[in-house]
């Protein structure tokens, strides 16, 4: 595609380090030149003070219960590529963490839940909004368990024809039909190539 053909030739791009991530929320670890031996000096939490049974060798110490949250949904879809720019939806700020809503917030792992993702197109007449919505929906359908109801919409006021687009995205049959279409399917697959598990 020629540069001049792009719908929005010059979108604002966020740096990868600016994107919201789980690491940012954790306490900042020491990483100066003086911390090179921290693992030898300070990491004896599990040695002689806590009883250790020889067969439990500390694997999975770091694993704790962590329910599916907005950040995880964000991580799943922010890596989807944009159909026309060599950037991800996260970098283009199409997908935003505050625009991901999970209901009910405290969930029973097997109970029903709803994920609502509101997308913000880079320009309000973006004709690719439906494709982007389709890819996000497809990605979530593949990655979430069946007890999650998925709702992908354009954020109110961000798209000239948001009602129409939302209607298309909410129509299960139209979505299924769209994914039967080979060319559309290949576009979506290309967009999902950048997704890590």
């Amino acid at each position, binding site marked *: 595609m020629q540069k001049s053909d792009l719908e929005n030739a010059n979108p604002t791009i966020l740096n990868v380090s600016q994107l919201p991530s789980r690491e940012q929320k954790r306490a900042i670890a020491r990483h100066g030149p003086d911390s090179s031996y921290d693992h030898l000096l300070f990491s004896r939490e599990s040695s002689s003070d806590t009883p250790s049974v020889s067969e439990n060798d500390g694997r999975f110490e770091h694993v704790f219960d962590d329910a599916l949250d907005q950040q*995880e949904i964000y991580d799943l879809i922010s890596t989807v590529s944009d159909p026309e720019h060599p950037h991800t939806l996260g970098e283009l700020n199409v997908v935003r963490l505050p625009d991901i809503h999970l209901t009910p917030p405290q969930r029973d792992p097997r109970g029903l839940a709803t994920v609502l993702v509101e997308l913000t197109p880079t320009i309000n007449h973006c004709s690719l909004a439906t494709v982007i919505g389709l890819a996000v929906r497809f990605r979530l359908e593949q990655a979430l368990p069946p007890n999650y109801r998925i709702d992908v919409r354009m954020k109110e006021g961000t798209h000239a024809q948001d009602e129409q687009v939302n209607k298309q995205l909410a129509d299960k049959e139209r979505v299924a039909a769209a994914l039967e279409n080979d060319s559309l399917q290949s576009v979506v697959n290309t967009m999902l190539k950048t997704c890590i598990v």
Partner: protein
Amino acid sequence: MANFKDWALQYVLSDEEPAQREIAAKAAKEIESSGASRTVVGNWAASVQPWMTRAQSDHDDQMDDGEDGGGGDIIARAKALGFLAGTLETLDRKLLKTDQVVFLVGFFGAMFSYDHKAGITASAKALRQLYAMKGFKPDMGVKMIEDVSKLKEDFRLQTASTRLGIYELFLGLIQDPAVSSELQHKYGSSCGFTVDLLQLCQNERDPRNLMLWFKIIAVLLADYSTSTEVTEEIFKAVSAYFPISLRSSATPIGITAKDLKGAVRACFSAHQRLSTLTFPFLMQKLDQGDAVTVAVKVDILKTTKACIEQYENPQTSVVPHIEKIWNSLKYEVRNGEVKETIEATLEVLQAIANKLDGFKTQKLDVSLLKSYVDLVFKDCRDDLANPTYTKQAGLLLMTVITSNVRAYMLESASFVGCIRQNFRQPKSPSHTRDLVLILNSFLKARLELVRNRSQGHPEDEKQLKTEPRVHLDALFHDVYLGIWTAKANEPNSENIEILKQVTQGLALLANQQVVQQDGSSSLLCSGKICSEICTLLTQCLVKGLTLSSNDNTANDATFEEEALLALRSLVMVYTPAYEEFVRRATTEIRSRDWENASSYSLDALKSVVSRLAFVGCSQIPSRVASDTTSSKSLSPLQHFITLTTAVLEIFPLSAPGPGTKALANSYAIAGIHAALLFFRDACTAKYQPEAVVSYSKSDKNWIEEFGQLPDDWLQKLQVSGDETLGALNEDDPEVYRQFLRLSLYVVRHLYRTASSGTQSIWTGRILGQLADIAALVIRNLGEQLQISCNLAHEAFNFFAGPQTQPSKHISTEPFIELLTRGVLEGLWPGAMVNLYNPGGIAEKFLCNTDGLEPFLGLQSDIRASIGSILANKYKGGPSTSDPESQTVKRVLGFWGEQINKATTSDGTDPKIFQALNNIAMHIVAGAAARQDKAVIDLIPVFQAAIGSEHANSETVARSLGTLVKDSEVLKTDNHAVIRRFNKQWAYSHLAKPLYPLASPSADGASAAMRYRTAILSIVSNCPFNVYEADVEPLVRLLITTLTDRSGLSQRVPSQRLVSALEILVEILSNEPDALKGHLKAIISGGMKIYEECLPENQDEVKTGGKAAPRRNLVMARKLVLQVLGAVPKKFEERYLLPYSLQLQRMLGLSCGDPVREVRQIARFARGNWLKVV
């Protein structure tokens, strides 16, 4: 005659090179045997006559018919001439007489006029041979060049290899002094022959030939005094090739574009005669602006630099062009954006300054350099005030001024003055930042100039001695401190960036040295300034402790890192600064309450402690005179001593109650540990590992020496220094030995204190840390040194002194045995032999089953690790204290007995047995790592124990994997004896015989299940190649384990399941075909296990009222999904289709697993199965 004719004919008819060479050799031999008589040589030459006459007629035809010569005859003729050339090649060089050589030169030379098609290759070859003959005379060389030049246009029609031969001939001739003088005699200074050569070769394109052609040109320019016209012609020829590039080719020829560029550059810089041509040419190319690519620009700049450096007599060759060069080059930096171009430009400017300065032996008149530096200064001064160009202008100025000492002396004061003036009226924060950056680079360059002063002209050093320092002295207060104070108050990100630069600048400023009149160097900054710098940096580094968590707003950590590096660089030259840092930090540490320290305080302590160690010990301080008058002599170990003493003084920070973790105390001890680690690394880096190893050897008994030292020896060292240490030079690897000695002293001190200290301070955690410190220090000592210090004895004596009997612990602290582990871990096996005498200390320890209460698990772990080391580093046999090699055998026998007893008769409490079994297994593991044969004797005991229907049998089965598990304490770094194939050995002796017993059809289902547990426990700790041969029976066991999970308590199958799944993952990635027949069992078993291991279903799998450990459940789920996810990648779709639907459903559900990491693997597996359709 007949012979030669026949041979010539044979040669012409032959198509194979070896045969041709043979014929030529025969002819050469014939000539040699005749002594090169006139007749024979004549006959030889005439032997090609039949082809030559035709050549003549061909030539005539050619005249008539244009290009159409007799094709076949050309080949024959070329071969005939090849016969002559080939003969010359093998002919004795001394044989032919001068007149014969003259004749032959004439004959072959004529070919270049008459026979352009057939004669050239052979003639070129022949001429090369003739040039090497003894009868060759210089005038023939001239003739050769003239003859070959007659080829003119047809030269380019020759093959590349023929041309290569001619180039080689030319190069040889023009480099030959005799030929060269003959040429100059004949042609005079004009060197007219070169014009013919240029015409001949001007169309050359072959890279290999070009390399020679450029070499020829460079020789002509450098060795022949060509006239201006000829020089111009030559330059025209070479410059046509500039810039040169090389098309990439499928068949590499061994010449790169870089070689070609270098060759052209050598032509440009061959002689200063070219200067009037090269500089205008190059600058004109450069001024084309955007039309020139970066690579070409760099080539131009490098060529300019080479010319400046190579041309002699700079007054006439370089000076007239400087202004032009400067005017073209300055824009490359001023407006340049590409790093490579900017760097290359700066190199050129530096080269000019160095050229104008003179040579190492002789300096040029200073006015040349001065006018150049003035020119640069004049152009850049105004730009310094313009924020857009500040950085570039500063870079230009700084580069030129610091090119050499003379330039530095000329302008440094006005440069610094100019920068300071701009600091007073900064246009923007970025302007300030750029100015600091320039000043920093200037200081860095100055540091290099002073450091390398002795390598240049003696006058340089003399000049530096008289350097005015006022402008430098004022930098701290005028510039750096001012900016620091202004910016530190508003720490926004822009100011932090500036502060980082200022920090770097402070370190550079503190490192500046000035040359004294006696040639020695001392610090530029006064002690007072250094102290002030130290205070600024220290304040920033201990901020975590001085402020509370609310006040210490998270600044950019990189700024603190910068301060850390700056302070380290300061304390390496100004040693009192470190004492100040330590004093400040310890005061802050003391002022906090550590009894109930918050995690913020503990983190702050952690940072400060490791910063203290890093700043003082990660480099070895250098001895630079400063203006402080200190009575004690400075030693490279001073900082290490200061830190250790300080930590020992503040320790303990708190006296915790029983059960608390006492992290603060542990972190304080970590300070010493960190100092040891950093200093050891600094020594290895500075003295090379080999020197460090050889300096860790000695035969002195340091422990005995320590006994005679006063108890407060370290404090005394800290306060007043020591003669031996004070005399150490930082470059002497002896520093390392003294470091080891001091470290051992510290270990001894800590061990003595700990073993007699109160239980509440010396908790298990701290003792463990102490043991690690001891292991670190002791393992770095050589074996002989360990023996002479009798460290093996100290493992049980804790350095208590000679009067105390070993093995009588002074303290009743339950974890005191950790200290034993520390010493033993670092010892060489050779240094431990005395422990193993029959009935001796090691045997007693290894067979001790008492005193495990009240911390059963912990005590057993400690004993197990010590037992493992003792069993591993055992050395028996004649000339040792265990000549019969029976000690370890008896120990293993003892434990065999214990296991046997516990699994046959009732009475041993399962909990106690678990602890004892842990010790036993680790001892056997130590012996198994060095493949001790006594381990084999235990195998029947293990088999019987596992097979026995006793509650303790399960414990034995489960723990068998310990024997092959990678151990924390058995590491080759710690001199453990680990045989290369010990795992294979253990597997084949221990696991292999169990397979028949473990099969589901074997007698006794529960015994078979325990055997399976044992096998899986061993296999899951081995790499795949160990059990590769047994994959088939193993897979059967795995499948049984996956599908049959009845009986036994929950905890056990869960552990066994995890092992089984781990092995399955390994087999899937290494040999998936072995699983092909079992896919159904794996998939359905896996799905079932996943379901059962979910937390909500735990009740169903719970038996005996005890839930499986949670981490096992998570691990099992994760591994199941790993196995299921890997299956589609390993097998064809036809095997997978039947399971696709049900698996996708199950994997869909597992994407909602409660654990995030498991969900991630579930998604991966789901993705893989989605592709199966």
